[in-house]
């Protein structure tokens, strides 16, 4: 399979700079561990954030910190797409008989992010062991869907920025606000912020869908009917659809205008 070959190539590339890859991986994991400690110490001072306790927040943090580095590792090609446009690499991809998305996926895989995924998984496990959740089959599904939703969300943001960079060539810094902003925000339950922020990050950028909404279902709390909480991750995943549509449209435009 072609993707396997791409993986192998990237592994080989990073082995050329073994020490560097390991150092970057370790230091990035340490940053994540630092953020985790910050969360812990904050809860030493303020026992709860709104209705949410430490382990609830830890689970949200865990979901975020598992999903985001996965996207950074395997879907980095979209994030770096502006460089492909800038240096004419896109033309090179277009003269090959393989789907362009496949080639973008293959264009960059960053293994140094893997370490952070482990930190995210460990945080999730600690949280799940300490939370009083009576697991049902549906709850397990919703939990898995939350991880997938987070992956889809950040993938969507990357794809969106890739689509925009077709026109601007330079990567737009304001898009980092979306990526990093939502990442920072999602560290805490979104519903502790003012109403319009909560709404914005539910319906426009569906950060809440892998944040407090599915958690409400898992914890059997909240005022809305529980099925709404349960399907929220599915709603969040849909975010990626218009992003991909926009990207494909931009690509068509590129072929039309050759910007």
């Amino acid at each position: 399979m072609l993707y396997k070959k791409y993986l192998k190539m990237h592994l080989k590339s990073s082995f050329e700079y073994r020490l560097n890859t390991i150092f970057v991986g370790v230091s990035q994991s340490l940053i994540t561990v630092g953020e985790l400690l910050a969360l812990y110490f904050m809860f030493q001072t303020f026992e709860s954030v709104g209705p949410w306790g430490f382990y609830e927040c830890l689970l949200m943090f865990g979901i975020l910190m598992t999903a985001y580095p996965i996207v950074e590792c395997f879907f980095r090609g979209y994030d770096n797409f502006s460089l492909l446009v800038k240096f004419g690499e896109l033309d090179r991809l277009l003269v090959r008989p393989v789907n362009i998305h496949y080639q973008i996926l293959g264009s960059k895989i960053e293994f140094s992010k893997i370490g952070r995924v482990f930190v995210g998984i460990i945080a999730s496990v600690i949280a799940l062991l300490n939370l009083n959740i009576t697991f049902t089959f549906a709850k397990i599904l919703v939990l898995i869907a939350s991880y997938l939703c987070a992956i889809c969300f950040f993938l969507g943001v990357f794809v969106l920025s890739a689509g925009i960079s077709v026109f601007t060539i330079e990567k737009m810094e304001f898009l980092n606000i979306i990526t990093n902003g939502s990442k920072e925000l999602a560290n805490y339950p979104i519903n502790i912020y003012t109403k319009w922020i909560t709404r914005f990050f539910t319906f426009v950028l569906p950060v809440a869908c892998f944040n407090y909404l599915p958690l409400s279902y898992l914890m059997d709390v909240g005022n809305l009917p529980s099925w709404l909480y349960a399907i929220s991750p599915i709603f969040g995943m849909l975010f990626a659809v218009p992003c991909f549509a926009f990207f494909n449209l931009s690509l068509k435009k590129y072929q039309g205008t050759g910007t």
Partner: protein
Amino acid sequence: MSNIIEFNNINKEFKIFLRDKGLWGAIKGLFKRKHKLIKALNNVCFEIQEGDIVGYIGPNGAGKSTTIKIMSGILTPTSGQCKINGYIPWKDRKKYVKSIGVVFGQRSQLWWDVPVRDSFELLKDIYNIPTEEYQKTLDILIDILKIGELLDRPLRQLSLGQKMKCELAGALLHKPKILFLDEPTIGLDAVTKLAVRDFVKYINKEWKTTVILTTHDMTDIDALTNKVILIGKGKILYNGSFEYLKNKYANEKTITVEFLKEYDKIEVEGYNVVSHDKNVAVLKNFPQTIFNTQKFLQTITQKYEIVDFSVNTISVDEVLAKLYKEFNL
């Protein structure tokens, strides 16, 4: 021979946005954008036959790369028809590109940090080449390009010429019917340049590959092509053999004459005195004068005593410079 490439009235317009000068202009540009239409290609028509080696020439910005991009399916033209190898490049892109190979002289398709062989293996998967066929083609390519010992080294350790050889091999692994070369010899030393040329000739002869190359190196054109297409300001200006162009312009000779003594003034009928310093003069024939050694010597020795003389025909580079000048490029 049948036409493998047909370009029929291809037009390509680009919209470019104009911005006023300075900071204020940049701010104004955020709200109100003026734009200008640029005609990159203007009713471009040409045909290329199977097995041709075509030189696609023209000054920078003439529309060469736009044409190449349309031919390789990257860009969609604004209007016009184009059929290559039975496909419309931008419509049947994925099927079409299997039959072409593209080498962008300044950009690599091989991986920087891994051995060249691995990059080739990736291309094998991308083009879905059966293992046996791949091995056979690779053996031939290694043999003609002499890249056997380069394959196990990462690309970053190779010299420019070695890289270009590997690049060529990479573009031909799937045995394309048409090969686009965008400035393949740029920056190469003389030996490598010759090797690249021999290679292009070889695949053209043995594999019947049609080759379209853009270059600013006229010796490439002279050595390789049987046809040139000259483009300027988006229009095709000439389409035919390079020999014809050469003969047309090579009529001009530059003659350097050394005289026995210093003459005050030198005048030769039918010739223009370009420079005259002490006992050496440089002459050029008028366009209507056809240079003939015997006649020239007779004319000049009637009036002056000469020691030595030499005749220079203009170089291929000068042919092109004259051509560009003639078309106001």
